[in-house]
């Protein structure tokens, strides 16, 4: 959608379709209206989905933490089964897994990857760059 409203679009000049000035004006006004509609929608969307976004963020941190403890416990239990020292490594690796869970969580919280909305707002891929790869 955003590509078609790009003013520097490769077809804005020397395209026989846009030769007539009134046709070009009509085209411009429809594109502007489409863009306005789109920005209006984007402004109203985040409020509506705020709860869901928070929910998914919270669930993400939680799963990072649980995964750390789970893996720590499993590794400890496996080592114990191999060597035959049952509670020793299980306890040690549960504690290490707890630390790993905290580390996972802090990493996930600090390194916030761009949201879909941010990615959509970023400048679009440069045309013609990928063809020669």
């Amino acid at each position: 959608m955003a590509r078609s409203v790009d003013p520097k679009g490769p077809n804005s000049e020397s395209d026989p379709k846009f030769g007539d000035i009134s046709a070009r004006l009509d085209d411009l006004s429809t594109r502007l209206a489409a863009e306005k509609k789109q920005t209006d929608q984007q402004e109203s969307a985040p409020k509506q989905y705020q709860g869901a976004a928070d929910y998914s963020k919270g669930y993400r941190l939680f799963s990072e933490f649980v995964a750390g403890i789970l893996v720590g416990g499993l590794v400890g239990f496996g080592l114990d089964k191999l060597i035959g020292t049952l509670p020793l490594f299980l306890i040690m690796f549960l504690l290490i897994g707890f630390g790993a869970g905290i580390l996972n969580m802090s990493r996930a919280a600090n390194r916030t990857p761009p949201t879909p909305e941010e990615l959509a707002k970023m400048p679009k891929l440069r045309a013609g760059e990928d063809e020669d790869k």
Partner: protein
Amino acid sequence: MVNDPIHQFRIHNILGPWNIFGLEIGFTNSNLFMAIIVAVIVGFLLLAARKGTLVPGRLQSVGEMWYGLIHNMVDNVLGEEGMVFFPLVFSLFSFVLVANLLGMFPYFFTVTSQVIVTAALAMFVVGLVIVVGIARHGLGWFKLFTPHGIHWGMLVIITPIEFISFLSRPISLGLRLFGNMLAGHIVLKVFAGFVVSLVALGLGGIIGSLAPLLMAVALTALEFLVAFLQAFVFAILTCVYLNDALHPSH
């Protein structure tokens, strides 16, 4: 029973099972939907790219947004040299997204609600990180587990923690997708089941069933959002983890 919330996740053979190398292997409903997912992705993208006009039509716009979103993501997280992973990330995202969305149709099977499927996808990603990391950096890749500039005494504690943290990645990546899809579908089914049981009670029940009905409608909208968000999160975490294969030092 009509509203058994777990019934929708049951796997059954459609064809077979055949005896292949001593293993009972059949063509299940899960396999059928995986095939449908691939057909939908390929069919849609071919249809979207069929005309290939400079000013995109509606269908082509969706295809370009789909492509552009993942292209921007890989470019952002992995940079220019990470573009070799673009086809992989695009395929993973498309598969998960279409699997989640197809699961929203009534009577359709949700492939991503099977933990074995999401675990296999996650294991593949983390396995790829290890293989690419060692192929690119040799044994130097293991510096990933020893953060730079820390006293050697601390390394004794930090290294196992980093190691467990690395091992927990496929678990959290796979479990999150599986958990979200499973929980969402069960909750939807339970609320829809409330409506059916309440209506059977008579007039009072019909009035009382309005609340769970509204809830089910709201949950359906939420599930569509979760379907997209989880596919997006899966793709972006794939990029973040692949970044460790390219640049192991923190």
